């Protein structure tokens, strides 16, 4: 079973394998600069270079977030920013290189001595661990700690909501219940992972999967010492293998990290240990957080979800502030899925009518406009994915206006010349999605398409929009959603939302229930290609087929406008993490 | 006859208490309420004046005017003269009047339950009344005085009752406590506003006896306000009958009861239950309702209810009768405000009213 991709709650975890340099903000040429400690920053500078490079130590890094972390437990952490944050206290076998641009997409050894040895059939991965790497309590990190960490993700009843990659790749029919119900006295009962000695770990896959190294680079691959595991309460005191360890944690209000004395920089070529202390403050007041960022009493929005509307205005209208901001593409597309199980959207022309009738600009504005929302999306592959082509615009959306005459023609073709009625399903906890739903509703009206809006509890997406039966029963013809891949390959991004084998009875994300043999074949072919460029061609092909089938109405290639305190050092946008890399940050004034 | 009204006998010496041409009016959103118009009377020490009338006739307003209790109401306007022991009260300062209140002149209110503060003990309220007029007196002395007063008005176990609240007293006891509070400073003028209305008959008699005894003991002048002529008959030396804010008949108790002059007074007498009357006889109440003080009837205020109003042509409906001597057959100082000729009144009373009383 292929990697399950997620609809992000907060931001993106776009782990890019490809070679494309996703360079955001290309449309915003400006000359605003700011000077800090001799180096200069310009708008979007951090997306292409390291801003304020420095090795100065000391001080406190003040991270703020308008949203609590989903969990600090590595088995659960799935928000893009908590994955990024976890790198401060959790190491994995491999991790992303701390470099701007496409270099940041490559995996470099972390706990492992080197890249894994892969068997000829591509099914066995063998990693050798560095020696002398310790947890914060001084105990040595062994391969069993890594295996135990992976086993924990199997205990879905105790630790739900985390990535399921380990189960999908490694269970292989064992029905391993997780370590808490493991009959093995050492709790090492997962058969597909071997730890012949303390420094070797071997993974046996059922079939080749080039994504596997990336999957266990997520925090699920972090070591967890069994003797310190407290089940679901582990999130309140996770062990540290990284440069920082927790001094205190309150899941709702934040956490304080201090230097981990047992972290040895000579074993870690990736992370820095510059500030003495890192404080994560969870606030309920996003406006206050933005005000603090601008005032300099907060350093960075850890959620990287973009500043609020008011601060956006303030930043964009002030060149000085703008110089410390960036809006890179975050690998998400916001779109409406057109469910072909719901009449009359079973008819491709009716779906096309919706696409033509929609107003690209109002949808873009509803998402936050060109800078904070994103560029008008023209197709279903985001720009940072190999095979994407933003110029591919089959429905002529980039010009920004609705095309009512074309919509009417399509309606004629589909046998509803006077329009029809349908329902827009939207999560009630996403103001921007609700805004796009109402914008779409308003745009469809002149074409005679009467859409009513159905709001549902966002937490129930898996059983409402994600349940084909519910979609059909409630006539949810149009489903507003957003998508960011865990792995930014064409397969990783598009297959879960366009390939027939991904249709599930609950938790489905292939909302339109696309099961087109031609599309399925394109994905299968792409997965088997050894040459990335050839694979990219297959995915481009799949993208074309998806667009021709009018299953999706893309809104924007998502962007988020973020601001950082000019005193921060080593600020850069990591394309794999899809945000500023926290592990490199320091403060220039030592406070 | 003890009436020494200022209109008769221009003595240089003022009576102990005298009210001259008292007017009280209130401005309300619904119009001007002319509560008392041109009220004039006087009273000597040791004597009792009964003021009789229905509710809204101005009797209570008059007594409150005497105590200066309209001063706190911004919409009240009081004119005329009020003399107490050679001191004029209408023009006196607030502070002067306040010092007299509760001291030289005191008042017993109608409903002692609502007239006593529910949250303070009865004793403390009496102490308060004493202390304010005896600054410098210790709490202990004040307390002893209060207990002494409670004992004198006939409250058993005064020491214990001192700490009770008004609601813990029975009706009669409460009225006694009220009287104790009024008398605690030996007032020279005591105004009792319907002191027995809320009480049952046996207690009524006890309270009246008490007031009479205390008056003899303290030698106070007493104004007894009531709508009950029986009470007046029992206590009063002089009687004042008020209607629609005006004095309509005034005279010694003896005269007013023997030869009442005003048809309204006849009505009042007719509505008074008497022990010597046959129970089968029906009481004859005064027909109709009291007039609105905002909108008094033209002419004689009593005309809508007066069975004899038509006897003078339109006069009763156009001309306000003045208070003047009752004419032949009445005692000295017996005054009445009625358009009926004196002879007619005598005749009507003798022939039509008296037999039914």
């Amino acid at each position, binding site marked *: 079973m292929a990697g399950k991709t997620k609809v992000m709650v907060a931001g993106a975890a776009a782990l890019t394998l490809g070679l494309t340099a996703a360079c955001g903000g290309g449309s915003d040429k400006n000359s605003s600069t700011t000077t800090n400690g001799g180096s200069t920053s310009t708008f979007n500078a951090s997306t292409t270079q390291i801003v304020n490079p420095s090795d100065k130590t000391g001080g406190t890094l003040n991270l703020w977030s308008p949203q609590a972390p989903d969990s600090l437990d590595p088995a659960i952490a799935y928000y893009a920013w908590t994955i990024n944050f976890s790198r401060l206290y959790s190491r994995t076998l491999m991790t992303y290189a701390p470099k701007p641009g496409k270099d940041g997409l490559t995996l470099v050894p972390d706990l492992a001595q080197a890249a894994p040895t892969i068997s000829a059939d591509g099914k066995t991965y063998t990693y050798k661990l560095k020696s002398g790497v310790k947890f914060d309590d001084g105990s040595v990190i062994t391969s069993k700690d890594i295996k135990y960490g992976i086993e924990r993700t199997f205990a879905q009843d105790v630790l739900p909501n985390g990535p399921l990659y380990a189960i999908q790749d490694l269970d292989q029919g064992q029905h391993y219940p997780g370590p808490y119900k493991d009959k093995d006295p050492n709790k090492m009962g997962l058969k597909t992972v071997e730890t012949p000695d303390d420094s070797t770990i071997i993974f046996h896959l059922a079939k080749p999967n080039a994504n596997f190294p990336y999957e266990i680079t997520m925090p699920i691959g972090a070591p967890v010492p069994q003797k310190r595991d407290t089940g679901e309460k582990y999130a309140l005191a996770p062990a540290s293998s990284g440069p920082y360890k927790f001094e205190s944690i309150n899941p709702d209000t934040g956490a304080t990290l201090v230097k981990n004395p047992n972290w040895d920089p000579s074993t870690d070529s990736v992370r820095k240990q510059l500030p003495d202390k890192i404080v994560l403050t969870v606030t309920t007041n996003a406006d206050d957080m933005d005000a603090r960022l601008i005032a300099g009493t907060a350093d960075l929005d850890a959620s990287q979800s973009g500043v609020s509307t008011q601060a956006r205005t303030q930043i964009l209208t002030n060149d000085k502030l703008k110089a410390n901001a960036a809006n890179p593409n975050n690998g998400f597309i916001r779109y409406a899925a057109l469910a072909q199980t719901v009449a009359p959207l079973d008819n491709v022309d009716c779906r096309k009518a919706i696409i033509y009738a929609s107003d690209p600009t109002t949808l873009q504005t509803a998402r936050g406009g060109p800078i904070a929302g994103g560029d008008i999306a023209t197709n279903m592959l985001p720009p940072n994915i190999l095979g994407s082509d933003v110029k591919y615009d089959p429905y002529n959306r980039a010009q920004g206006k609705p095309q009512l005459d074309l919509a009417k023609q399509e309606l004629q073709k589909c046998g509803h010349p006077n329009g029809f009625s349908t329902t827009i399903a939207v999560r009630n906890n996403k103001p921007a999605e609700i805004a796009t739903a109402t914008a779409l509703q308003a745009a469809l009206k002149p074409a005679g398409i009467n859409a009513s809006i159905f709001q549902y509890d966002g937490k129930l997406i898996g059983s409402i929009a994600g349940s084909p039966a519910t979609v059909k029963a409630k006539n949810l013809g149009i489903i507003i959603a957003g998508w960011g891949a865990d792995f930014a390959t064409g397969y990783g991004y598009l297959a879960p939302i366009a390939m027939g084998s991904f249709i599930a009875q609950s938790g489905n994300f292939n909302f339109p229930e696309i099961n087109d043999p031609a599309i399925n074949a394109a994905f299968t072919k792409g997965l088997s290609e050894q040459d990335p460029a050839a694979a990219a061609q297959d995915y481009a092909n799949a993208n074309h087929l998806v667009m021709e089938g009018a299953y999706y109405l893309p809104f924007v290639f998502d962007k988020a406008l973020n601001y950082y305190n000019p005193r921060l050092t080593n600020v850069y946008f990591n394309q794999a993490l899809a945000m500023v890399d926290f592990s490199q940050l320091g403060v220039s004034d030592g406070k | 006859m003890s009436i020494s009204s200022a209109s008769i006998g221009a003595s240089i010496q003022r009576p102990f208490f005298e009210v001259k041409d008292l007017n009280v009016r209130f401005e309300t959103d619904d119009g001007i309420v002319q509560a008392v118009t041109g009220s004039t009377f006087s009273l000597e020490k040791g004597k009792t004046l009964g003021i009789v009338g229905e509710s809204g006739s101005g009797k209570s307003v008059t007594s409150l005017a005497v105590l200066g209790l309209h001063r706190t109401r911004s919409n009240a306007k009081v004119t005329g003269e009020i003399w107490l022991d050679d001191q004029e009260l209408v023009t006196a300062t607030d502070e002067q009047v306040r010092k007299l209140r509760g001291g030289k002149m005191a008042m017993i209110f109608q409903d002692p339950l*609502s007239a006593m503060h529910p949250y303070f003990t009865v004793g403390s309220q009496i102490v308060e009344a004493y202390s304010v007029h005896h600054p410098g007196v210790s709490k202990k002395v004040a307390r002893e005085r209060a207990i002494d007063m409670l004992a004198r008005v006939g409250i058993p176990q005064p020491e214990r009752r001192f700490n009770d609240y008004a609601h813990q007293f029975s009706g009669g006891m409460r009225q006694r406590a009220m009287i104790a509070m009024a008398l605690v400073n030996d007032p020279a003028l005591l105004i009792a506003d319907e002191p027995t209305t809320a009480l049952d008959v046996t207690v009524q008699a006890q309270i009246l006896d008490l007031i009479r005894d205390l008056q003899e003991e303290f030698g106070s002048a007493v104004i007894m306000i009531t709508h009950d002529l029986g009470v007046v008959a029992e206590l009063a030396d002089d009687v004042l009958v008020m209607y629609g804010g005006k004095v309509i008949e005034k005279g010694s108790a003896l005269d007013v009861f023997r030869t009442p002059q005003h048809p309204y007074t006849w009505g009042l007498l007719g509505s008074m239950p008497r022990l010597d009357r046959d129970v089968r006889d029906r009481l004859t109440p005064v027909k109709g309702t009291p007039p609105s003080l905002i909108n008094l009837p033209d002419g004689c205020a009593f005309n809508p209810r007066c069975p004899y109003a038509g006897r003078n042509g339109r006069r009763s409906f156009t001309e306000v009768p003045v208070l003047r001597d009752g004419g032949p057959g009445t005692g000295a100082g017996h005054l009445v405000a009625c358009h009926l000729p004196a002879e007619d009144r005598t005749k009507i009373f003798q022939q039509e009213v008296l037999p039914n009383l």
Partner: protein
Amino acid sequence: MLAYIIRRLINAVVTLIVVTFVTFCVFFLVPKLTGSDPALLYVGKQADPVALAGIREKFGFNDPLIVQYGKFLKGIVAGRDYVTGADVTHCSAPCLGYSFKNSQEVWPLLIHALPVTFSLALGAAVLWVLMGVFFGVVSALRRGSIWDRSAMTVALAGVSLPIYFTGLLSLSIFVYWLGFANPGYTPFFDNPWQWFTGLLLPWITLAFLFAATYARLTRANMLETLGEDYIRTARAKGLRERTVIGKHGLRSGLTPLVTVFGLDLGALLGGAILTEAVYNLRGLGYFALNSIRSSDLPIILGVTLFAAGFIVIMNLIVDLLYGVIDPRVRLG
């Protein structure tokens, strides 16, 4: 007296049980009626069948409603263990449930939120009582004057203003225009001055609303009291006007306020939802709102119980207090 208190306490407990039962029923039945599964709320979007079964077992969602409710009640008294296989999560008494969203027991979570709501409510209460009583009394004494009219106009405007509007207005004026710091909560013992300054704006905004009501109420009560016979008696005794108003008038004019104040404070202690929402204060009300938005039932139940508890307790206190301040009231 003791018997009375015991009887009232029993009453209070019964009320709280009914409150929880109603809340419990609604939030367990409504998802059933609308065809969704409470277990889904815990596992989130993945809806993994293993996880779902585990959650159902753990929470006892398979039990009948009354059994679930019984377990909930028992948890409050004796604590509760959530068991799946060998994994046991203990929730010690008083256990209001366990929020699996962030792996925390509800009770300490709410206790943690209490100081914020307490600070907000009590600080505002002091302000509004002082302001309300002052303006109410002065208006009553100068009835019809310019002072009275303007105070009552402001008060009427005050009761007509929604707090989320005044809150936003105050923020735009004081924080964004005049540049005061954004309101926020600092624990009193961490820094009393910050505690004070951080809550000043919420206090004033909240107090303004209540002060308006209290001014109207005080004025009405005082006017009624000043018209009472015993005030006339007090004057007739020759008491100074100061004593008449200050002692006899206030004593009975303000006594009814005790009831209202008790109820208002009780309601507010359960969470000043709107104020906390506008100023982003993390009190009980904020918690409640958040848990409602994320359908975190254990917390919703907990906050409802807390809120009802405060109202019931304040009611009891008010009644007991009345027995002391109003001699006419006999408890028993």
